[in-house]
């Protein structure tokens, strides 16, 4: 097994080349600093500054992070978020990037230059986004209702539904079936109207406490609940308690519940800020 040290290093040198720069966020600081080995796969995270902003990055091969393994992906995504959080805590304002944004580079140093050039060219745009987002954070607000409870309440309060409901009791069986179909359709329509009303009402109440709002798609919910609104709210960091109080009021309504998540870095408000 004659195999000299030099030769043993051979293929490894090829794989070590880290010509890409994994980009976590742009932060409001001109500091040139290492944040330590806090990155994805414990990579060392550091900044590339330009004037009073910097890119927060780690060196990586110019290949995307890809895996079918849930555990691995979970750990990556959480590591990404931890880095953005660290930068956010340190410098107050960040423009986060989505997972797996890697600046290309063909040779050693060219990705580094690409990052620098990009910061330089985009400086005005990035700087104005930072200014617009200064002191603000993103919060997720999801409002759910329990359709059973809502339908019951509607049956009690809507005169039209109540009338139909009473008529059914007086009808012979066959007719009662038809009437019940009509009743179900009526309840469905009334619930749609009710959802619309609630959306408008809640939206205007939440809007007062938010600097900006993005309406997101509603998603499927579990436990028989329905999501009737899904918002991302941009809120001044010191103002979220007021929003929380407003959400409390909604949460206390019978049949309604609210999920309040955050503070998130302002992911949903970067474009357009």
């Amino acid at each position, binding site marked *: 097994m004659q*195999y000299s040290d030099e030769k043993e290093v*051979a293929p*490894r040198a090829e794989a070590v080349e880290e010509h*890409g720069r994994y980009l976590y966020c742009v932060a409001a600081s001109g500091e040139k600093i290492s944040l330590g080995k806090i990155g994805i796969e414990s990579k060392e995270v550091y900044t590339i500054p330009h004037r009073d902003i910097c890119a927060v990055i780690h060196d990586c091969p110019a290949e995307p992070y890809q895996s079918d393994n849930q555990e691995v992906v979970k750990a990556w995504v959480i590591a990404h978020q931890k880095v953005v959080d660290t930068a956010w805590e340190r410098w107050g304002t960040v423009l*986060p990037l989505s997972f797996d944004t*890697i600046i290309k580079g063909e040779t050693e140093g060219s990705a580094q230059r690409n990052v620098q050039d*990009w910061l330089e060219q985009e400086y005005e745009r990035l700087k104005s986004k930072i200014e617009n987002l200064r002191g603000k954070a993103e919060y*997720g607000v999801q409002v759910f209702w329990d359709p059973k409870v809502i339908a019951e309440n509607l049956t009690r309060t809507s005169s039209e539904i109540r009338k139909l409901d009473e008529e059914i009791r007086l009808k012979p069986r066959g007719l009662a079936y038809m009437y019940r179909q009509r009743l179900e359709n009526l309840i469905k329509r009334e619930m749609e109207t009710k959802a619309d009303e609630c959306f408008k009402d809640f939206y205007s109440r939440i809007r007062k406490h938010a600097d900006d709002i993005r309406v997101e798609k509603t998603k499927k919910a579990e436990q028989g609940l329905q999501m009737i609104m899904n918002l991302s709210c941009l809120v001044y960091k010191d103002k979220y308690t007021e929003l929380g109080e407003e959400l409390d009021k909604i949460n206390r309504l019978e049949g309604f519940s609210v999920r*309040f998540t955050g503070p998130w870095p302002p992911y949903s408000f*970067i474009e357009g800020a």
Partner: protein
Amino acid sequence: MEPTRNSHATLVDLLDRILDKGLVINADLIISVAGIPLIGVNLRAALAGMETMLKYGVMKDWDERTRAWESEHRKKVEITAISGEEIILEMFGSYYYSQGIYTAWRMGRIYLTGKRLILYHPSFEEMLFETPLEKIKGMALERENYFTGKERENLCLLLESGDVVRLHALDTLKLKEALEQRMSTLGLGWEEVPGLAAHDERTAIFLSQGEEVICSGKMWYLMSPRGIMAESWKPGHLYLSNKRLCWWYDFEGKVGFEIPLDRIVGSSVGTRDLGTALKGAKVLDVVYLNQGGKEVASFSGEGLSEWERALNGIASGKELAPAFEIETCPQCGQEAPANELLEMGCRYCGWVSPRLKRQLRQSALDRATR
């Protein structure tokens, strides 16, 4: 109402943001695969599963959780499991999880307490691995070519149960030192067992019934171009079994190349330039038959001439070469075949592996009770 973003409950919310949103960069500057956003390539598949899991598993107790949120988020997240135990060392780390076909380095925080060694995942509040210190019977440092291209150190632990656990920490050496110090303080005995590092769990995954590994070793493989990736050397392990020659791709954790033994035509070691930096490296070319023609697979690593001899032996229809994995005795440093060392002990100085010791003790006990 206070906002929350703790642990499992908000992972989906995080994913919604981190995967689709954020600062947009000129596409010319960033890596993409055939113009498809990266995340679409295959992370989605893994994440779809995750979302379902969260919905059906974690979200099941959704209503209860909603009500518990407010009180919950105020509680400082602390590991109740180790409350009351002195934490001697805490650092980021991971351990190699392998069960059936599922393998992964699972990451978390390593805690060395007065009594236990623990790997804990703070975000998921999950205990990934734990062992009482007195169950640790052997240790070894292993150097591994991690897929990032860097060589890194792993700490292999032999547990009383006979299981071997591989851990990696931010500072593996420091972890080992602290562990040894604590175990000495407690008066616990353990042994350095370099053979542990050779212990290979990968084979358990891909070997079929009746298949046995004859020899194995770390080996680089010249992978043909795939998608946007050019031809390149990839780190892995080459295995010769009584049925096939196959190469395990460390990066993807699966078999990346394999051929049945009867298709091997021959092999030769030559000298070649690998990339621009390295001239005249040794490369093992294995010629084999593939759908109508001869093809060549190239490997680079240690002990190429041994591999060449073994493969040519197979090609010429001779008996399979005997196992030649050589290990040094942890006590006297004499070289001997690894299996001989582990199964019979060292014939020079009489060193015996902990596992063998246990077996001997057990059989002595059996005899005594009989």
